[in-house]
């Protein structure tokens, strides 16, 4: 197949890319842009390790073609830290021992970030729903939920 031209903003930087018509966003990010924080686990939408934020929404980058994304905005885990300082969500994951092997962590962070961008004060149920599509084989999820809760302030009724 031939190449498709796409203009894309990734972590605040604009790119004009030529991508294959079957190229997944996951491949573009990892291979062309070297953003290897995006992880490939299952490749079929089940594990969430490849989660990025696309136009404000969490998506599986293994199930999106880059060709679909002209004029879109993507944020990966590399886009969270600013000026060499971790973003509070990342620091909270460290402080609450929400990282073990770390393979799920970038995806978890992006799902949590997508939630917090929409609702800075989610309750526990909303946090769990936001993480439904992210599997973790190490932590048992509890520490991850606590890390996110530490930033959300008192739960609204």
């Amino acid at each position, binding site marked *: *197949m*031939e*190449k*498709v*031209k796409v203009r894309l903003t990734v972590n605040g930087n604009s790119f004009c890319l*030529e991508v294959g*018509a*079957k190229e*997944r966003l996951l491949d573009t990010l990892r291979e062309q842009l070297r953003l290897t924080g995006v992880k490939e686990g299952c*490749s*079929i*939408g*089940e594990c*969430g390790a490849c*989660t990025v934020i*696309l136009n404000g*929404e*969490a*998506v*599986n980058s*293994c*199930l*999106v*073609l880059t*060709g*679909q994304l*002209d004029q879109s905005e993507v944020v990966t885990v590399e886009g969270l830290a600013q000026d060499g300082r971790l973003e509070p969500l990342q620091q909270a994951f460290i402080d609450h021992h929400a990282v073990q092997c770390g393979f799920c962590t970038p995806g978890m962070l992006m*799902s949590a970030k*997508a939630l917090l961008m929409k609702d800075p004060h989610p309750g526990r149920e909303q946090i769990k*729903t*936001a993480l*439904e*599509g*992210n599997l973790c084989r190490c932590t048992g999820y509890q520490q991850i939920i606590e890390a996110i809760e530490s930033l959300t302030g008192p739960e609204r009724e």
Partner: protein
Amino acid sequence: MKRKLAGKQGNRPLISGRDSNGYFLPESLAEAVNLLGQAGEGLKVLAGGTDLLVDLYERLIEVEGWLDLGLIPELREIKVRAEQIEIGAMVTHAQLEKSENIKKTLPVLAAAAAEIGSPQIRNRGTIGGNVVTASPAGDLLAPLIAYNAVLELVGKDGVSRVPAGDFFCGPKQTIMKRGQLLSRVLIPRPSSGTIGCWIKIGKRKALVIASISLALVVRLAKGGVIADIRACFGAVAPTPLEIKAVRRLAGGKRLEQLDFSQVGELAAAGIAPIDDLRGTAAYRRNVARELLIQALEKVQSTGGEIIADQADC
């Protein structure tokens, strides 16, 4: 039209056979139909990609090009009119789940959309893709049949409208013809006495393919008489299945006049289940009976609370 075809074939207006290798982003439905009409089997209609890209990864399909519906504005719209609700084929599950209008007028559909896959899947997956994929476990299909939805198909020979109940003919098989697109889903606006219930049973809470699901929609006339009742199951038969015997038994009666276990038997007898890794046929018959009883009880006691139960197989 934005035509994203680079290189030597860049300006060819026609695509066919081995030339159909490209990426097409039509900006109107007419253009999309035109392109599809000229293309071969290898040109795939691309909506959210959550079914197609899994099939591509698993090498179940041969793709020579994409017809991406993402730039056709009308396909993304939800319109609530006096007579009917019109949902564009590219409306995502997340849109359905969050739309105040859908929650108010079609709560059973909203509840089903809210339980699909995961947030990531709901943000990309569309109603059109769910319908055209026609998986027996497609979660929007039973609610659409229960609400009497009509599917609008557009092809080069014009527009046709098909009741959702007549659209599915087998697992992953529909009456849609090559060259046709699904443009909109049209749902008669339920009258104010309409209540309902959605139940999906799977092995775990998130990311489950239903082992059985039930959409129940009951329209009550004045005095509580059942003017219409649709009990539609998912994942119990090769296609989503309405148990029409329920309509015959219950129509014209009041809910409290019904023997719910008798109605439940109609479900157990009416489904055509299979044994698979999500449950045995006998299990599914038992669950179908119990689900219908439970749904009727809920509808009666709460006036139509939406339950979204999960249970272990």
